[in-house]
């Protein structure tokens, strides 16, 4: 109560508020429906997103396993998949149209449903209120709507997998005319319609979430939580949400015009097209216009996927190196720079669409600039680790794994960003290898690291560490075994999304390599079930978590082990320092909670901080 005396009215008010919440949840727990299903508690919503994300990740991974069997072992008799795939297996062979549909759905599911909803939805929801010191999101109701829009979207997308003509099959980028004409592929009919409706709902969900995140971070911070005292996780979620607010509406308008082209007969994207010798009525549309609109979302989207993972990593690496994050403000600056740049590089996905080479060189220049803030982040991670008292928790290992993928995948980004080289590499497996490392695996590792690190806060229990280590090493080695060889097939020129390697003489020599990649992919996928088992087992049977298992500074570890709705019992703690006071010289312990005032740590205060104490003392004396 000591710091409340400055404004007694507010102090009493917050206390009363806190007390209300406490009462609510001590005496009336609510029904199962309001507590676990239609909950407005950000922590429950976060878990809903997480479990939905895990569900989708298993589906997305299963799809990739099936098409990797096709690519690696083209002569396999796939009849054993008949119980699941039914008519899509014809005479022991995978139907080529369905292969395209699986590739499309794998991309859509992983990018949007796992790494956008599963990652941002889980950790922005869970950590923002807990780390800034708020009782809940700005609007719990909109937050709940956000999940249920996502759920509706998921149901439609899932149903589209099981319709007779198959799901959308024009690639996750759904370029027209493939996506616009039902004649183009079986999946471009009903499957594509369902894809578009599902994505429209998904965009609504994402916008509701993002608006809530930004509004909460700016307006609901506890006393003393200035912007420069925010953990880097929050900075990352904050900018991710801003990117979402600015870019998802653009996908919505692109999708809207596509819907008009598909079902009303307009010609936004369709120009003179002949099918079986007959001209379609559409004239004068521009397929390139769709690409511009799509990639104006599509490129920022990869940062929507990556930035939260980078934020999570910043926090976990600092905690487990027992050192302040190196270059806190440079980290914020580079997130800001990446956010800004993400909006002005979209055309590097379109170098080979016949764009003006001069325009191409501008986009190339802007693209290569991204290497600078990215390198700042990579170096800062490494320098944070440098000479730290590193604690190798599973979360820490996955974070270091992220840094590794971020570097090895980022380097090929510098290669691909060059418009001249892109003529050779465009739409080859080199691109597949690049983005699976830097965006797919890196973000996935960030997400898993976050689960290992914050599981104790989510469920009050610890995940099994041994299983975590096995999971890490199998996945880390597996990911490199899968994606490193793909660089070679890519440079050799093999195009992505093709059904078969074996029908071309030039690629026959890659048969063994592909068998190796497929084996590694299947082993890696199977290893994920260690995690799934660990996750669900530990929710019920895991070792009970202490209050602050990682000895971290941030506010979430000051809440009760199983926080109720409202997070803190009684008053919300105030914040006096930044979140990275680890191993501060002269301090009693190697971490100082954000809630510890400078006057309580006289032995470790730095010069400026001593002044701070004295100044406040003087102003006190005056008053």
């Amino acid at each position, binding site marked *: *109560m*000591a*710091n409340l*005396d*400055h404004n*007694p009215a*507010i102090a009493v008010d917050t206390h009363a508020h806190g007390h209300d919440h406490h009462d609510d949840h001590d005496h009336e727990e609510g029904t199962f429906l309001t507590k676990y299903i239609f909950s407005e508690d950000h922590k429950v919503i976060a878990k809903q997103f997480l479990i939905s994300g895990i569900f989708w990740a298993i589906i997305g991974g299963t799809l990739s396993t099936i098409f990797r069997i096709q690519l690696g072992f083209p002569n396999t008799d796939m009849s054993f998949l008949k119980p699941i795939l039914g008519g899509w297996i014809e005479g022991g062979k995978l139907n080529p149209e369905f292969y395209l549909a699986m590739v499309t759905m794998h991309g859509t599911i992983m990018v949007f449903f796992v790494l956008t909803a599963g990652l941002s939805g889980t950790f922005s929801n869970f950590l923002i209120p807990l780390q800034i010191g708020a009782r809940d999101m*700005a*609007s719990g109701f*909109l937050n709940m709507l956000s999940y249920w829009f996502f759920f509706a979207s998921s149901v439609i997308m899932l149903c589209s997998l099981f319709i007779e003509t198959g799901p959308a099959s024009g690639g996750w980028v759904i370029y027209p005319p493939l996506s616009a004409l039902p004649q183009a592929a079986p999946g471009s009919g009903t499957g594509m319609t369902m894809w578009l409706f599902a994505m429209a709902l998904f965009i609504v969900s994402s*916008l509701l979430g*993002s*608006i809530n995140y*930004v*509004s*909460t971070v*700016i*307006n*609901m911070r*506890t*006393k*003393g939580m*200035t912007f420069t005292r925010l953990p880097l996780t929050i900075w990352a979620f904050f900018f991710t949400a801003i990117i979402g*607010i*600015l*870019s*998802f*509406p*653009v996908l*919505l*308008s692109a999708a*809207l*015009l596509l819907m*008009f082209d598909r079902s*009303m*007969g*307009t*010609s*936004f994207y369709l120009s003179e097209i002949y099918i079986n010798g007959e001209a379609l*009525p559409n*004239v*004068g*549309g*521009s397929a390139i*216009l769709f690409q*511009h*609109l799509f990639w*104006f979302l599509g490129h920022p989207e990869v940062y929507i996927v990556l930035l939260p993972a980078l934020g999570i990593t910043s926090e976990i690496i600092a905690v487990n190196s027992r050192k302040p994050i190196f270059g806190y403000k440079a980290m914020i600056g580079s997130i800001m720079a990446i956010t800004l740049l993400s909006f002005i590089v979209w055309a590097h996905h379109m170098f080979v669409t016949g764009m003006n080479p001069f325009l191409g060189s501008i986009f190339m220049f802007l693209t290569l600039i991204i290497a600078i803030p990215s390198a700042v982040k990579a170096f800062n991670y490494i320098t944070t680790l440098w000479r730290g008292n590193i604690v190798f928790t599973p979360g820490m290992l996955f974070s270091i794994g992220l840094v590794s993928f971020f570097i090895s995948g980022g380097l090929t980004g510098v290669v691909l960003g060059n418009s001249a080289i892109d003529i050779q590499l465009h739409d080859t497996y080199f691109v597949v290898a690049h983005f699976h490392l830097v965006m797919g695996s890196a973000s996935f590792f960030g997400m898993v690291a976050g689960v290992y690190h914050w599981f104790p806060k989510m469920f009050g229990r610890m995940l099994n560490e041994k299983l975590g280590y096995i999971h890490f090493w199998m996945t880390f080695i597996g990911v490199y075994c899968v994606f490193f060889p793909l660089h070679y097939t890519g440079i050799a020129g093999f195009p992505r999304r093709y059904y078969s390697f074996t029908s071309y003489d030039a690629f026959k020599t890659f048969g063994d390599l592909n068998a190796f990649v497929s084996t590694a992919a299947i082993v890696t996928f199977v290893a994920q079930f260690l995690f799934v088992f660990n996750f669900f087992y530990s929710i019920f049977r895991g070792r009970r978590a202490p209050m602050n298992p990682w000895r971290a500074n941030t506010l979430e570890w000051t809440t009760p082990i199983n926080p109720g709705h409202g997070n803190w019992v009684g008053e919300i703690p*105030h*914040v*006096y320092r930044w979140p990275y006071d680890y191993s501060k010289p002269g301090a009693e312990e190697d971490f100082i909670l954000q809630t510890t*005032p*400078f*006057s*309580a740590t006289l032995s470790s205060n730095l010069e400026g901080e001593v002044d701070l*104490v004295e100044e*406040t*003392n003087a102003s*006190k004396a005056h*008053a």
Partner: protein
Amino acid sequence: MSSYKSPMVEQESDVAQPTLGMNPKKFSMWLFLLSVVMIFASLTSGYIVRKSEGNWVDFELPPIFWVTTIILVLSSVTHHIAFYQAKKDNLDQVKGWMIITSLLGIGFLVTQFYAWVYLVGINVYFVGNNVAGSFLYVLTGLHALHLISAIIFVLIITVKTFQFKVHSKNILGIELSTTYWHFLDALWIYLFAFLLFFH
């Protein structure tokens, strides 16, 4: 500020400053408007990109757009008067001006519809001929869709006024409604100016 002394002297020397912040709901409204801006920004820039590729049929904009613009600007004024009266607790005035606002909003939609009738009259259709016409229908249609949501919002606030739930101590709802309405007004003026300039 206070003469109260805590027994824990050393903690007294630290002051956790309150953080800056506005009403989260108001802030969320502005973020929502930002995403609407992005929808129309992408559509109008798509319009420019598509127009620059040629094969673009020019036609006269419906002259009735000038009338619809005046109606919408007027409605913005009446909505603001309602907000102003709500701050002064003149609830009867609020009710009156809010009803006038929603009627003007409906009037705007009806006159926009007549603009479409005019377009059909000069053989500019949503489907079938040049995409220049389709763009006009999409832009006006999407704006109208948003305006319908704003009218519903105004009607909800009007009902709340009749229930004495809108007054100077409970101003947020009508303030958000005013912001949204002004925004859609400004958005229409932007779209109209854009179409005048680029059609």
